[in-house]
């Protein structure tokens, strides 16, 4: 988003009042690991319910909206256009991904200009989608993908990737396969599939310097038909032994979401066929 000179700028730095709450610095407690029950009554390996909808933006070529309870993502995909500022021929089309948090989506207010985290997430998004798109079908062009996080409550990247994949399919951008992504948070012996914000914070907080306990958030992007991992990110500290069983588990979760995307697309095609019949 270009900087807006007409916007009244607030003070240079402001601090959300949440930081002054007495229990902010306290770690969220998940003291009863045996039951393994999470705040909202989910099991450790239970994904939040998924809501998917396509065609939410009439101006875009394709769009999708995705909701994991409080994580809400909207994504628009636009027609291929010429790659700006490029002078040589590129045989492969390019994806331009923009990952943006709405200013009000997090506890801390986000600026209008993309910050470092958003840029990094944009890279991950692009890396996750690139292998799935038939980029040779639009040489010299780029497809713009804009992801907006309306409400952030954990698993933002995973939600964004899944949503963008659906939006690409809705825009009829040729793809080798649909991609789905799932995150898992690990904190010592606890694990949270599809972590909420609170759980992510718990897993991200740096452990005491000596501890070798795993603490990480892992996001895996998978193409179910091709059986390929298209993006894999870890943030935190984790041993190799923990990864070995987490990767297959994450893939299982990705496979579980995959049919939901398919159903959503099939419904779309049926709808457009129906329209044709009556017109």
């Amino acid at each position, binding site marked *: 988003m270009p900087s807006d000179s007409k916007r009244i700028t607030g003070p240079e730095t402001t601090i959300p009042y949440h930081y002054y709450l007495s229990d902010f610095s306290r770690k969220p407690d998940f003291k009863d690991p045996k039951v393994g029950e999470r705040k909202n009554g989910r099991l450790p390996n239970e994904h939040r319910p998924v809501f998917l909808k396509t065609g939410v933006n009439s101006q875009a070529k394709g769009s999708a909206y995705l909701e994991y309870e409080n994580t809400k993502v909207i994504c628009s995909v636009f027609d291929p256009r010429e790659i700006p500022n490029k002078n040589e021929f590129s045989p492969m089309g390019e994806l331009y991904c923009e990952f943006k948090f709405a200013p009000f989506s997090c506890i801390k207010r986000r600026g209008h200009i993309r910050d470092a985290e958003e840029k990094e997430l944009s890279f991950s998004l692009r890396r996750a989608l690139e292998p799935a798109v038939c980029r040779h079908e639009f040489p010299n062009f780029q497809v713009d993908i804009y992801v907006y996080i309306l409400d952030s409550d954990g698993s933002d990247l995973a939600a964004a990737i899944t949503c963008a994949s659906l939006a690409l399919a809705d825009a009829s951008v040729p793809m080798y396969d649909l991609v789905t992504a799932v995150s898992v948070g690990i904190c010592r012996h606890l694990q949270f599939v599809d972590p909420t914000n609170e759980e992510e914070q718990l897993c991200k907080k740096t452990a005491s310097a000596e501890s070798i306990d795993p603490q990480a958030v892992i996001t895996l992007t998978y193409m179910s038909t091709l059986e390929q991992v*298209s993006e894999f990110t870890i943030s935190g500290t984790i041993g190799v032994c923990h990864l070995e069983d987490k990767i297959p588990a994450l893939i299982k979760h990705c496979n579980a979401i995959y049919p939901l995307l398919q159903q959503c697309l099939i419904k779309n095609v049926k709808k457009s066929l129906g329209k044709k019949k009556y017109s």
Partner: protein
Amino acid sequence: MASVLLNDAEKTFILHGVEVDLRCDGRRRGDYRPMELETDVVSTASGSARLRLANTDILVGVKTEIDVPYPENPEEGKLEFFVDCSANATPAFEGRGGEDLANEISSRLSRAYQSLPLAPLCIVPKQACWKLYVDILILECGGNFYDAISLAVKAALFNTRVPQVTGSFLDGGSVDLEVSDDPFQCWRLDITKAPVLVTLSKIGDNCVVDPTAEEETCSVASIVVAVLDSGSLTAVIKIGEGSVHEQTLIETIKTAQKIGVELNSSLMTALNQEESLGPKRQRFGFLK
């Protein structure tokens, strides 16, 4: 990445070489190219290192400055990475050409370095802390940026000397910072929690360590793994536009972890060795 133009025959040659475990420069799949490392090369920086990995040349300078801690982490210092892909390296980086790559590397690095405890960098909680600016200059590219940069950064952080500063509260809550009279009274960072990155490029059915620029062009996907001394991983990054199979991913990460631990220990040995030579050691500088 700065791409090298290769035709199909050249690519096939590299591919076949990797298949029989003999790469173009005579290395095997798991071998690194020779490295040269020198620390304390820039007198104006608090810490610096220069690493030359065959044709890849990296210069890292660390600057320490005083800043106010983030409100969400009031008891921690700050660490920031800046990568400059200078047009010296390749003309492709001219203007804003290298910007994307630079942003990508710096954001990936800061993610991998999340494991480094920043609490020692705090001077007065909520009021003052050290901010480390890690500036990375790419002087020449010959492939395998991530490994080279991470080694150079770790060496530069090892070399960094943070001045001894004590803070005291004055009336009205303001803070008075007092720098030690002796300018040589410094403390050093604990870099056991600093990772090194190991890149494994998938070429054909095999993965190679330390890919050259040519090999990078042949590879569609590379996995970069950040490994600590202890063998724990702090980040796994996929670069390149391709994808990998789940089994390959696990195998690659395992291999990278083993290599990373070795790399960490040889880096520390080298650094300690250099250190033991004392301040009067022979300097090489970057022009040699």
